[in-house]
């Protein structure tokens, strides 16, 4: 019979995506230098402006490193990262020209992950740009989207085919000087996704990228840029997994979103990077900078994230509300189990008049997990009648985990209205017993409570992904109760 501590022995279920794919890859030796930056740029046959930008970033990063400017303020703990021990480039050899040339083993892996890359996705209406280690291996639906003037391709391809757009928007939301990890990314990023939706076009399908880190000791530094022109709309989803490895791997990505007048971007993430084993060994350091700019009037940017993976998550998808009447939203579920740590939240920077923002954050801690919400709401002097609503809820499973909330509020215009609600609840033995007495097992009870807890966020996800997110949460919590 279950004893007093129902919550010990968390997550005996192994990580499901921990397989390694045997594919010929081209990698550079570990280490970071100007030569490596030049090599990455040369491999990608980049125009001069890209190389210049990378080198500027690299030189800036050296000053940051010398100043020991790696951010230390987050509520996370890890040993020093040896940046010279990381490989900064890894790519499958023989880059395919089309999907039919893609290595069958790679396609089989995507099957295993459930990435719809072939006919299935036509039915599902999902266009996928799959990023494997550092280069994009195939983009579906490109032609169909192209008919509408939508560009959806690998970042490296966009550099070749649409250099003017890249030049105009790259670094316009997250400059290469932004922060230590964003600077590192700017110097060495190898690929990512690019999306451009022209004026007045409503993208008819969910666009999706699936990221995966395969090669050992490889940091994945992808960079995503989405530009929504006047009056356009796009919904974008990224999903992430990585194989099981004992050493930690760094993932320092940058995502930039630009929404012009009356445009809307909806960006959803399901992050399931390898979280490390149940003793806290291995796992991904997910240090990511995501920011959107509502550049035009009446524009809207909405971030939805379900973070269940990574040993450490450090990310704050933010919105700069520059255009008048623009709207920023952040909906987040972050789960930390075993020894996972998450310090995540958002920044809503109100610059324009009548700007509105909503923050709904749900943190779930189990095992020895530590979950921190950190968020800034800033209302600048010209942001008359700005409004913000924030809600931060924490749910604790067991008595060895932690939940923390750090809301920062900075108001410089007296017409602003802010609301902040927060709650912390704990699933108690008595609640579990009550459910069991009704025939519901502890595991089902936890999953009922957790999905109820996350409902406000899940309903913001595209339908099919909401189901996936719910399942993922169930798997991540399996074994969290005795």
């Amino acid at each position, binding site marked *: 019979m279950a004893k007093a501590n129902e919550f010990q022995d968390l997550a005996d279920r192994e990580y499901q995506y921990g397989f390694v794919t045997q594919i010929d890859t081209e990698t550079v030796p570990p280490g970071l230098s100007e030569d490596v930056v030049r090599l990455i740029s040369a491999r990608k046959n980049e125009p001069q402006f890209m190389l210049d930008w990378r080198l500027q970033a690299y030189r800036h990063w050296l000053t940051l490193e010398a100043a020991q400017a790696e951010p230390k303020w987050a509520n996370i703990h890890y040993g020093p990262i040896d940046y010279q021990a990381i490989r900064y480039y890894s790519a499958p050899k023989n880059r395919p020209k089309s999907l039919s040339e893609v290595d069958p083993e790679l396609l089989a892996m995507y099957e295993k992950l459930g990435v719809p890359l072939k006919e299935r996705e036509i039915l599902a209406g999902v266009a996928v740009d799959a990023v494997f280690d550092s280069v994009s291996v195939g983009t579906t639906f490109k032609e169909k989207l192209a008919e509408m003037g939508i560009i959806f391709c690998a970042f490296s391809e966009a550099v070749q085919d649409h250099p003017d757009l890249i030049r105009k928007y790259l670094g316009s939301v997250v400059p290469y000087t932004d922060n230590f990890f964003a600077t590192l990314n700017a110097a060495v990023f190898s690929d990512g996704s690019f999306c451009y939706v022209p004026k007045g076009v409503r993208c008819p399908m969910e666009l999706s990228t699936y990221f995966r880190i395969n090669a050992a000791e490889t940091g994945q530094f992808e960079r995503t840029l989405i530009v929504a022109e006047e009056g356009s709309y796009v919904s974008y989803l990224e999903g992430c997994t990585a194989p099981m490895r004992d050493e930690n791997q760094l993932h320092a990505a940058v995502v930039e979103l630009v929404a012009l007048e009356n445009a809307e971007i909806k960006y959803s993430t399901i992050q399931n990077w390898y979280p490390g084993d149940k003793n806290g060994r291995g796992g991904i350091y997910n240090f990511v900078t995501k920011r959107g700019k509502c550049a035009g009037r009446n524009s809207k940017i909405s971030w939805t994230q379900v973070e269940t993976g990574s040993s450490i998550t450090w990310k704050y998808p933010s919105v700069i509300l520059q255009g008048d009447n623009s709207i920023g939203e952040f909906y987040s579920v972050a789960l930390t189990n075993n020894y996972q740590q998450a310090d995540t939240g958002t920044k809503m920077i109100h610059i324009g008049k009548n700007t509105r923002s909503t923050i709904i954050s749900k943190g779930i801690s189990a095992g020895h997990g530590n979950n921190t919400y950190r968020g800034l709401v800033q209302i600048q002097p010209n942001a008359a009648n700005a409004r913000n609503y924030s809600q931060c809820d924490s*749910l604790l499973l067991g008595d060895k985990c932690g939940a923390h909330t750090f809301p920062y509020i900075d108001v410089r215009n007296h017409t602003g209205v802010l609301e902040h609600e927060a709650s912390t609840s704990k699933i108690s033995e008595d609640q579990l017993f*009550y459910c069991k007495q009704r025939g*519901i097992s*502890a595991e089902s009870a936890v999953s*009922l*409570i957790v999905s109820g807890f996350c409902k406000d966020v899940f309903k913001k996800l595209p339908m099919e992904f909401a189901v996936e997110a719910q399942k993922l949460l169930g798997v991540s919590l399996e074994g969290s109760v005795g």
Partner: protein
Amino acid sequence: MLEIRNLHVAVEGKKILAGINLTIQAGEVHAIMGPNGSGKSTLAQVLAGHPSYEVLEGTVLYEGKNLLEMSPEIRAREGVFLAFQYPVEIPGVMNFQFLKAAVNEVRKHRGLEEMDAMDFSSFLDEKVKLVEMDQGLLNRRLNEGFSGGEKKRNEILQMAVLEPKFAVLDETDSGLDIDALQSVAAAVNQLRTPNNAILLVTHYQRLLNYITPDFVHVLFNGRIVKSGGKELALDLEARGYDWIREEAVSL
């Protein structure tokens, strides 16, 4: 249906039950009465399998099977139900959703097909009418912000939907005003069948005015010190528990 033999139970190292013997047949309603601290609720909790209660000695057979070996959820699926004295709030879970999950767990266990939301909804409608509960409570979070009376009525609703063979009602009368008491009792009476049994745990006699027990037992210091018919409850009402105390001491 239920056979308790020489049951000794401790909680946090303190012995509460000291040799309970009780046999309950299908179709019977038994009432356990007794002063505060006599062990009434402990008996209710241990039958349901609460992990904080440690069985030191004794056996409990339920339909010929060893009840004490079953996990709480198996007991529930096998038809043992406890209406809690203090129903807990379950955050974020809708009452309707909870009831449906519980019913389907029990149905699965009994080899029946699970009910979908539509079927369950019409099944539930009848039960809600039977216990005269406010329909609106179905779409609220389970027990969150429910009044004391609403919680108790909701417990009886759960009993109605789960159709247990053996139900323990732990102080279901506490916190109910007289009108609510009458209507809850009426619902319980409708749930009585020749095939199920009910154990009422209560401090006061007043519940027994509306649910007539076949047997009344008085619990004192962890033992049943007196058993009788429904008239024993009236005696207790008239004379209090002191004479029981005296009798027990002289035993």
